[in-house]
């Protein structure tokens, strides 16, 4: 068990800046998820912790000791690769015990530890098989077994579930969480899937182009995104955005002109005159109404036409065309909504995110 710390970490591949000024403190036992679109430097960061990649600049500490120059085998980490990297010519048992045998542990101890790990992961019946004779989920378990049997200070996972089908991925996600509860080892987990990140993480690190955009608990990054990128990356379906311009602002009332010259008034004074604003609203905060009720207090009303309906069981995704572009709502399925219907989208003012168009920063923070 250990804490992990990054100080001004940089990684360049020639001219490509894969990781830029990465700073983070990971507490002992924490489950940290690095998430971001493909190519944003997640794997590179993980591989620098593992010692598989040289560090261009900066420091990494495990358990408060600097490990920049420490050989991978002496860092006391275990890594699970996206393609599992099981040794094809070795049995499951030998795959799991391969690292222990390198440490020249007594035979009995190796045996016991392998048994223990295979019990934890339900691999008992598979120990004599070769990786080629395993299903995707079983391979994934073996890869996990190889990691936990070493009882390392830190687990590193690089998209370990992305080769599984959706159902299995869900199941393994839950097992992953359970396992972490059981062993409590500090875990750094890389994924491009924000749902995985939200469900697994104690804290999420959202990256883009090698830079950390935000660090926070799942709740924080969902409720208080630092900027437009984080807001659009977290949550499915993604947040809706539409533009506005500040027409006038007084102490307690700001008037903002939308694209179709409609004006809305907000009771806040965080704006400057003529500032370009981007509003964000999550699909789950849009209510789709058929009847033309009178205007509700502190809310915006948008006329729209339903273009697509995506039923998902107890919820339905409603995609609408409006003067502000495409807006997506998520509603309960009891609605009798049909495609091509005219509807009113009602948005509570308090649910609206407000970003500066220039800096893309969240103005409400």
């Amino acid at each position, binding site marked *: 068990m250990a804490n992990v710390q990054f100080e001004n970490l940089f990684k360049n591949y020639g001219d490509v800046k894969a990781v830029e000024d990465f700073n983070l403190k990971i507490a002992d036992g924490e489950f940290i998820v690095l998430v971001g679109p493909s190519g944003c430097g997640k794997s590179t960061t993980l591989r620098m912790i*593992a*010692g*598989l990649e040289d560090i261009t600049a900066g420091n990494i500490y495990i358990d408060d000791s600097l490990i920049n120059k420490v050989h*991978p*085998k002496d860092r006391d*980490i*275990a*890594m699970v*690769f996206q*393609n*599992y*990297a*099981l*040794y*094809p*010519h070795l049995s499951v048992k030998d795959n799991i015990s*391969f*690292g222990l045998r*390198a*440490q020249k542990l007594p035979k009995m101890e190796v045996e016991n530890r392998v048994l223990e790990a295979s019990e934890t992961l339900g691999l008992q019946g598979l120990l004599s098989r*070769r*990786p*080629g004779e395993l*299903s*995707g*989920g079983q*391979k*994934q378990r073996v890869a996990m077994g*190889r990691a936990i049997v*070493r009882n390392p200070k830190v687990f590193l996972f690089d998209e370990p579930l992305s*080769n*599984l089908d959706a159902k299995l991925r869900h199941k393994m996600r839950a097992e992953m969480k359970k396992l972490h509860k059981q062993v409590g080892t500090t875990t750094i987990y890389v994924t491009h899937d924000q749902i995985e990140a939200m469900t697994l993480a104690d804290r999420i690190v959202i990256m883009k182009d090698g830079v950390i955009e935000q660090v926070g608990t799942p709740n924080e990054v969902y409720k208080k995104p630092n900027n437009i990128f984080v807001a659009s990356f977290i949550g499915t379906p993604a947040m809706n955005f539409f533009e506005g311009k500040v027409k006038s602002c007084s102490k307690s009332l700001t008037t903002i002109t939308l694209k179709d010259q409609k004006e809305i008034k907000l009771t806040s004074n965080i704006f400057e005159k003529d500032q370009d604003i981007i509003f964000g609203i999550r699909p789950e905060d849009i209510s789709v109404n058929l009847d033309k009720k009178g205007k509700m207090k502190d809310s915006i009303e948008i006329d729209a036409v339903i273009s697509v309906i995506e039923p998902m069981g107890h919820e339905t995704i409603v995609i609408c065309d409006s003067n502000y572009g495409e807006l997506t709502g998520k509603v309960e399925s009891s609605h009798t909504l049909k495609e091509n219907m005219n509807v009113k989208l009602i948005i509570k003012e308090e649910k609206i995110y407000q970003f500066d168009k220039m800096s893309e920063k969240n103005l409400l923070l």
Partner: protein
Amino acid sequence: MSSNVHMIERLEKINPKKVIIWTLLFIGSIIMVTPIIFMVSMSFKTGQEVYIFSLFPEKATFDNYLFVLKESKFLYWGLNSLWVATFSTLSVLFFDSLVGYTLAKYNFRGREIVFIAILSTLMIPTEMLIIPWYMMSREFGWIDTYWGIAFPGLMTGFGTFLMRQFFMSLPDELIEAARIDGWSEFAIWWKIAMPLVIPALSALAIFHFLGNWTAFLWPLIITNDPDMYTIPVGLASFNGENETNWEIVMTASCLATIPTLFVFIILQKYIIKGIMLAGLKG
């Protein structure tokens, strides 16, 4: 009933393209096999009968075999050949794959230059190297020694190239996983990389062993003592100045083929068995 279905399926499968391919292959194999059949046939003929064109000897005899095995030095030569070819093949398997692995999986300055230099040795014909090899051997006293016969083939550019290509297709993650698991670089090569390229190693072993087994020019030059001859050199020594006893040459050739058959039979199953990437991906 079911056999009828099979018949119909078979008939449907016959198409002109296949007929042509099969015909060509058949002709090809006849051309390849005929000399071998005559070799075997002649080894059972008597001296007088050798020049009669017939597939089956009128009176089959084992005398040739007795002569080759008992009266000539064939068994010496066979052991010489076996020893040199085996030693040389093991050496090539070890060093070529070690160098090939290094070129494929490590990034170091000058890697490309080293690779191109090794590759360019493929373009130099053996005949050109024989004089420097010979002078070197004379200097070091390697004439009429096993080492002298074997040393030019202990590492080959071709084998290095072949092994590099195979190692390049090994996923880096396997090596990285083993590195994290705590094994030394040499152990990773030996325990992880090598077992996964067994098909390539088998192919290389067959090529190299056969090449060595049939090598003629260099062993002829480096050996003077008939006790040190390899089989091809020994076979050539059956050619007298005035006449050649073809039945003896053919008999010795038949015997010389047997070990190569064994090598091929033992190793070919590893070539076919591709376990390469079975452990990766879901």
